[in-house]
Every structure is written in structure tokens, then in C-alpha cells.
């Protein structure tokens, strides 16, 4: 796993750039606008594209529309205008469940509020994706069947989650272990496109490298990642291209390898002359 050794930004970038020119778009956003919310700027005519196997970083000072973008993409808030295409199909009017069925993964920025059932067990946090597609009448079947529990234990091992067992409560786990569970759940769903918001906030260093490795693995499989992060280092290490959000608008779109932190910083402050 090359991604785990030293400064891996250049390496990661190169790997994905090589496959990008002919890769199909997994997520296309065209002139997306949202209504005003309490906590974040509304989106204003945001357009961007994520290709299979690449990581598109979204930079910006917090409160400039990143949360609104993630929630609008996943379907937690409705779009006022604009189009969202997942794998070429419009999903703008679909709810969260249907978007996920079409291959959208989502790692929310607030894992305590949205990423995990904080008072629930690790199994309950892990199996969510596998329970989503259950049909109308199968909902009476057991949720945490033996098969799913065994599967959850296997996932825990695969992602090196340190917990007593799969019945441990999520709030008894460290931030890193919690985030591993969130990422494990999303990646085990094999998404075509992953909205990855603040993936390493409050996560210890060891776990950060592990999580980056898993994200890199996913892109090798062809998953396109939209990485929203307040951490510029993270964006520079992972992404192939960077878009900058300022007051809900995309003010710049730049390839990571030919840009500098200063340039991104200027765009983040709204100096886009």
C-alpha cells in the first residue's frame, strides 16, 4: 500500500490522472442551487463533475456551502434548481434511499449526528446499507440476523476496528474507530460515487493513514470520490483536481499537481481576480 508511506500526494495523483482521460463521469452536477439554511451558505449555480476513479477535492472556508453541497448531493436537502446526474441518470428528484440504490455513498461530516447511531451497537451502524434495499414485506425479517452479525464482525476485522465485539456501543469507541466503521459501511456497499465529507476530523494519525489507504483502494476499483474537507493538506494529498467554493459558488477549478496552496488560499478568500 503505497498510499500509506510518507508523502503520498504525488503518487496518488499520478495514479488517478493516468486513468482519467477516458473514464466516464460518475457524478455530474449542473447549475445546482439550494435554499438558504441556518448553518451554511446556499449553493448558487454549482456545476462540477466527478469521474470514475478520481478524487475531486472541494476546498473552501467552512460555511461557504460545503455542507449544503454534500447534503444536496445525497438528497437530505432539496435542490431549488439545477440537475444532479448519477452515472448519467438524473436523480435530482430522488430521495436518499433511491440515490444510494443508484450507487451513491455518503460519509457525513458529523459522524455523531449522521454517521453512526451513537447509542446503537457497531452492528447496527454497519448493517444499515445492507438493510436499505429490503422490500416491503421482507421488513418483518430479522434485522440483525446471524449472517449479518458475522458479516459485521468480518468487516470490523477487515477495517481493523478495535472494539470488544460487534455489540459494543458506538459511543464507547474512539473517533478513529468510529470513522473506520462509517467508511467501512459505505465502501462495503461498493459505491460508484462517494461523497466524503471531513473524513478525518477528530481522528488519530494512525487511523488517518489507514482511512486514506481504504479510499485510495476504492478509487482503484473505479469509485469516484467527492472529497469535502476543511483540511487543505488532506485535499492536496488525496485529490486529483480541486474546486473552490466561496459563498456557495464554484470560484475555481484547478488540477492539484499544477497548483499551489497560495493560489487555492486566494480563491478561498474570494480573491478571484
Amino acid at each position, binding site marked *: 500500500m503505497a498510499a500509506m508511506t510518507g508523502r503520498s500526494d504525488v503518487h496518488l495523483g499520478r495514479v488517478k490522472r493516468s486513468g482519467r482521460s477516458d473514464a466516464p463521469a460518475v457524478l455530474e452536477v449542473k447549475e445546482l442551487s439550494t435554499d438558504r439554511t441556518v448553518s451554511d451558505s446556499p449553493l448558487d449555480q454549482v456545476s462540477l463533475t466527478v469521474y470514475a476513479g478520481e478524487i475531486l477535492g472541494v476546498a473552501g472556508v467552512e460555511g461557504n456551502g460545503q455542507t449544503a453541497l454534500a447534503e444536496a448531493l445525497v438528497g437530505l436537502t432539496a435542490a431549488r434548481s439545477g440537475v444532479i446526474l448519477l452515472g448519467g441518470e438524473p436523480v435530482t428528484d430522488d430521495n436518499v*434511499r433511491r440515490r444510494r440504490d443508484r450507487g451513491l455513498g455518503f460519509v457525513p461530516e458529523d459522524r455523531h449526528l449522521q*454517521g453512526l447511531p451513537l447509542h446503537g451497537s457497531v452492528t447496527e451502524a454497519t448493517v*444499515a*446499507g445492507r*438493510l436499505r434495499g429490503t422490500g416491503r414485506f421482507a421488513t418483518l425479517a430479522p*434485522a440483525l440476523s446471524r449472517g449479518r452479525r458475522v458479516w459485521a464482525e468480518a468487516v470490523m476485522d477487515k477495517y481493523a476496528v478495535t472494539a470488544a465485539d460487534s455489540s459494543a456501543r458506538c459511543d464507547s469507541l474512539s473517533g478513529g474507530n468510529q470513522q473506520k466503521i462509517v467508511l467501512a459501511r459505505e465502501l462495503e456497499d461498493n459505491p460508484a460515487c462517494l461523497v466524503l465529507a471531513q473524513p478525518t476530523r477528530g481522528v488519530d494519525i494512525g487511523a488517518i493513514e489507514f482511512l486514506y489507504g481504504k479510499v485510495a483502494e476504492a478509487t482503484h476499483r473505479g469509485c469516484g470520490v467527492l472529497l469535502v474537507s476543511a483540511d487543505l493538506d488532506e485535499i492536496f494529498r488525496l485529490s486529483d483536481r480541486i474546486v473552490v467554493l466561496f459563498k456557495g459558488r464554484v470560484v475555481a477549478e484547478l488540477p492539484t499537481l499544477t497548483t499551489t496552496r497560495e493560489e487555492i488560499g486566494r480563491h478561498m478568500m474570494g480573491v478571484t481576480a
Partner: protein
Amino acid sequence: MTTLETKPTALPHRLALLARPVGRTGFAVLTGALLAMGLIALQGYAPMPTMLAGLRYALGDAVAVSRTLAWGLPLLVTALGVAFAFRAGMFNIGAEGQLYVGAMAAAIVGAYIGPLFAGLHLLLCLAAAALTGGAVAAGLGWLRAHWGVDEVLSTLLSNYLLVLLCTYLANGPLRDPTRQSGSTREVHDSAMFPVIVDQTQLTAGLYVVAALVLATWWLSERSIAGYRWRMTGSSPGFAAAMGIDIARARVTSMAVSGALCGLGGSLLVTCSQGRFWTEIGTGIGWDAVLLALVGRSRPIGVLAWAGVYCVLRASARGVEQVTGIPSELSSVLIAVIIVAAVARSGAIGLITDWARRWRAVREKQQ
């Protein structure tokens, strides 16, 4: 971390999980017993013999047990209904009203349709009760899910509206002309559960309740639907991000909850009373809310606490018969027991805190 390491601890772990609620309940029951002894002594009776006489009345023989059980069945179903909604984060405290409309619906179907083939008639009564109770609760749940109308207050207020509506029906259009006032016509025999223990009101409704307990437990704690309800209740943000339809979960959980409350009301009619009258279920809805709160919304916890409360209630009846101490003693006790249960961990924390400080002070002095 391997499975080998975790296996030996599995059993003690489970036991420890069980020990906590048992200890909690034990503490609360002990508090209640002490208070009961105090109150009985205050009235000038010997506490222990009086309490034993009460217990004998509640659990002394098969007839006593059946009587206690018969009284508790509607309450248990209603409490399960309240707990069901609590688990999904919907504080349905409109159990009283839903119970009343359920009882009224069962009484109407029982009296104005039929007589029919017994099983079918009963089924119709129960279905009508479940539908009306469920519809009322689902409506309030819909208001919460789509318009943000706080369900605590709306269900609370709906109690008074629904009870008054039923009172109106029982005094007005549906009044039994042969009786003084406030009760509807007697239901047909085919709408009554057959008695299974003589001299008591314990009927075949017991089997229905047992099935309902199992079904509720499975639905709420084990099934995929229950997973969605529970996640909506404990972590709505997580549920929404996972693609669970929160609004739908809220409405459906209220519908099931209201249906159970309505069924509780129908049992009052079809198991014992045989008709609707205006005081048929006074207070049961509130008792059910208390049981759901103290049972922490878990079906098993509610079942255990409903058992405790039934014995308490029947014992209070027994005490009233031998001493003249009012049987409302049981309401006083259950309220105090519940307060003791919720204040316990805080009290223990406070006491250990004091003990630590006191030790620190003593160490300083030495």
C-alpha cells in the same frame, strides 16, 4: 481482538447486562415497599401482615392470579403501544384518548353488528378498535412528520378531545335507553371473549395479548422495520443519511402505537365490561405512559413493570378490603417508585461524591 478472547466473557457479560435492570427494579420496588409500610403504619395497621394479606389477595391462589392478570391485560397492551412509539422517538402520550376511541369502536361493532360467528365478531371488534386508535395516532404522527407539530402536546390535548367525544356518544346518540346515562348498549355475546378461569374475568383474550406481546417485541426489537423505527428514534440524523424515510417511520410507528392503545381499549369491552361507559378506562392511559417511561420503552421492560404494577394494584385492592385503606395507595406507590427509579443513579452519584469528599476531609485532618 479475536473471537477466542471474547467467547469466555460472553456469558458473564450477558449476566451483567441483565443484572443492571434487575438491580434498578429491585431498588425501586424496595423503595415502594418501604413507603407502603410507612403509609399502612400511619393508618394504624400492622404493616407486614397487612401487606401479606394484600399480596395474598393478588397472588394467593389461581383465582387471585387470574383476577390480577385479567385486570392487567388492557394496561399491558396499552403500555406496549406507548413504548412502541417512544422507541421510534414519538412521544405518544395520547394513550388515554386512543384507548377510549378503541373501546368505543369495539363497543359499537360488538353491539350494532351481529351476532356473528364468535371468532369473526371478535376479530371485527378488535380490528375496528385498532383501526380507529391507529388512525387517530397516525394523523397526529403525520402532523409531526410533515408539519412539525409537536406530538407531545398534540397527543396530550387529543386525550381530552377524544374522551369528551366518546362521552358525548355514550350520553347522546349511542346511549343505552334502558340505563341511566353514559353507557352504550351491551355487546352481543359473540363479541365477548370466553372466560377461561371460572369466577374471574380472565378470558381467552389472554392468548391474544400474549401474541401481541410477542409480535410487538419482534416488530420493535428484532425486525428490519423495527431497526428503521429505532434508528429514527435514537439517531434521526443517521437514519436520514442512511436513506431511511424518517417521516414514514414516524407516521407508521404512531399508527402501530395507536392501534395497540386502541386494542387495549377494546379488551376492556370484550373481556370484561361488555359495553362502553364513560369511566371505562380512566387513568389507564396515564399508567401506560408511566410504565413505558420506567420500562425504558423496551417491550420486556414494560412487561416486567406491568407485572409489578398489576400485583401492586391488586394488593392495594386486597389491603382496602381488610383495612379500609383506600386502594388509590397503588397510584401513590407507583408514582413514587418511578421517581425513585429515575433518581436512583443521580442519588448514588451524589452519595459517592459526598463519601469521597468526607474521606478527603478526614484525610486532611489526620
